[in-house]
């Protein structure tokens, strides 16, 4: 479904060039759930943005469904760390935003998408909140709205950039388990960035470990624990412990000192 061959990304930063990614070869199967894990600044977001077509690689090729990626695709959705809801829109109209941007065209009519939106809101426990404004919701609920929005076009591929990392631990677990449940009902390929080992093990069919500076593919770990998985007591504790330990080792191994990525300035993004 997603295929990266020799992908590299070099940025012209303020202090010269930054090699964010180098020689990434990755093949994600249809319907697979892959988590990307690595320290901050190792190029996880960059990798997702490449797949999303938000930026184009300085070397190598990115393909989705066999086609080279040239820009954002309708069947690929992107979910951010923050809910990224438009504050003046109600919950329902935030979920409908992608359809509105398409101009209501596409395979179904707008009414059908509206039904779908209600269905998704029900699935994520947001029934009754359709008319609320984002600021009236808790962080977890806002992120659920964001999840509904990224599902409204029935995407083939969902790219999720640390979507739950800004939430408190309980909400986070809840949402992870919910995502797993939703995923089991849909034929979607998911690439999910996280820096939580627990989350990676809970969600992934495969965990991809990146190393920083420059970002390289360090290891790919298969996880064969049957679903649905839970974080609490379960029959596979030893397996979970083994994989967690392995990932810990891969992440903690001494590599070049890691700097936090420089926060990006708002005014770097000007209207096109």
């Amino acid at each position: 479904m997603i295929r990266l061959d020799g992908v590299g990304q070099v940025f012209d930063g303020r202090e010269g060039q930054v090699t964010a990614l180098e020689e990434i070869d990755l093949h994600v199967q249809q319907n697979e759930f892959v988590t990307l894990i690595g320290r901050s600044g190792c190029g996880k977001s960059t990798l997702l943005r490449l797949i999303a077509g938000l930026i184009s690689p300085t070397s190598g090729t990115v393909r989705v469904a066999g086609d080279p990626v040239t820009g954002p695709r309708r069947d690929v959705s992107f979910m951010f760390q923050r809910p990224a809801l438009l504050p003046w829109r109600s919950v329902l109209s935030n979920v409908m935003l992608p359809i509105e941007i398409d101009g209501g065209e596409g395979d179904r009519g707008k009414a059908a998408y509206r039904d779908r939106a209600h269905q998704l809101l029900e699935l994520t426990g947001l029934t009754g909140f359709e008319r609320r404004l984002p600021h009236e919701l808790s962080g977890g609920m806002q992120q659920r709205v964001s999840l509904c929005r990224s599902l409204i076009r029935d995407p083939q591929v969902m790219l999720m950039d640390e979507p739950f990392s800004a939430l408190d631990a309980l909400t986070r677990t809840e949402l992870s388990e919910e995502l797993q449940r939703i995923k089991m009902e849909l034929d979607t390929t998911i690439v999910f960035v996280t820096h939580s080992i627990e989350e990676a093990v809970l969600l992934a069919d495969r965990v991809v470990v990146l190393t920083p500076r420059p970002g390289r593919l360090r290891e790919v770990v298969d996880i064969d624990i049957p679903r649905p998985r839970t974080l609490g007591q379960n029959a596979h504790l030893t397996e979970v412990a083994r994989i967690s330990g392995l990932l810990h080792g891969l992440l903690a191994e001494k590599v070049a000192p890691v700097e936090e990525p420089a926060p990006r300035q708002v005014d770097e993004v000007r209207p096109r």
Partner: protein
Amino acid sequence: MTKRSWLKDSPAAAVLLPIIGLAGAIALWWLATIVFGIESYLLPSPRDVVISFMDQPSYLLTETGTSILETVEGFLLAIVVGVPIALLIVRSVLLERLVYPLLLMVNAIPKVAIAPLLVVWMGFGQWPKVVMVLLVCFFPIVISTAQGMKSTPIELVELLRSLNASRTQEFFKLRLRYAMPQMFTGLKVAISLAVIGSVIAEFVGTTHGLGYVIYQSGASADTPLAFAAITLLSILSIVLFYILVLLEHLLLPWAQESR
């Protein structure tokens, strides 16, 4: 309800307290004119001011109307001119560098100094007044609009890009909407300046408007009339301001509550 929360939250307190404050100030003023026996041409009592207004209410209201028209026209023109300038500034660094110092310079000119020039250039009609209003109030509009446009959170911009939104969609569905609260802040500053601008412009080359009334009554030492005109100006300024506040409440309910 504690005393403090009553003061903060009760709508009755919100309306009553300013009225009490105002009434107190007027009472003090009145008292001062009586106790110190101040001559009316120096400091008229509130009663003198009211009498002065009642002498020629239709004249004063007509002149108020003239001032309102100039103020509102100039203000609207400033929006029409200022918002596109702000958009250009936000769109390109080159233009920002090119235009910004120019704007600063125009803004730094003491407006009183060019009032007579505007009359020379544009005659005695309402244009020099409208242009003066435009000059005094377009700067806060430009700055606040530009700031608002730039403050669009990066993740929202990326969201729209990931949805393959066109530039037009990005502008109308996101940037413009997001800039609105800050634009309103600028508009509220601008509307008060606009009233001042119209008064300054009416000091020269005209026989209409509250500015002219004040100027004239100063020359003939008719201080109560000047006070009446000034009072009308203040009321005008406050009313225009609250019209904007009301508009903001109606148009941007999301912005007030998330503040």
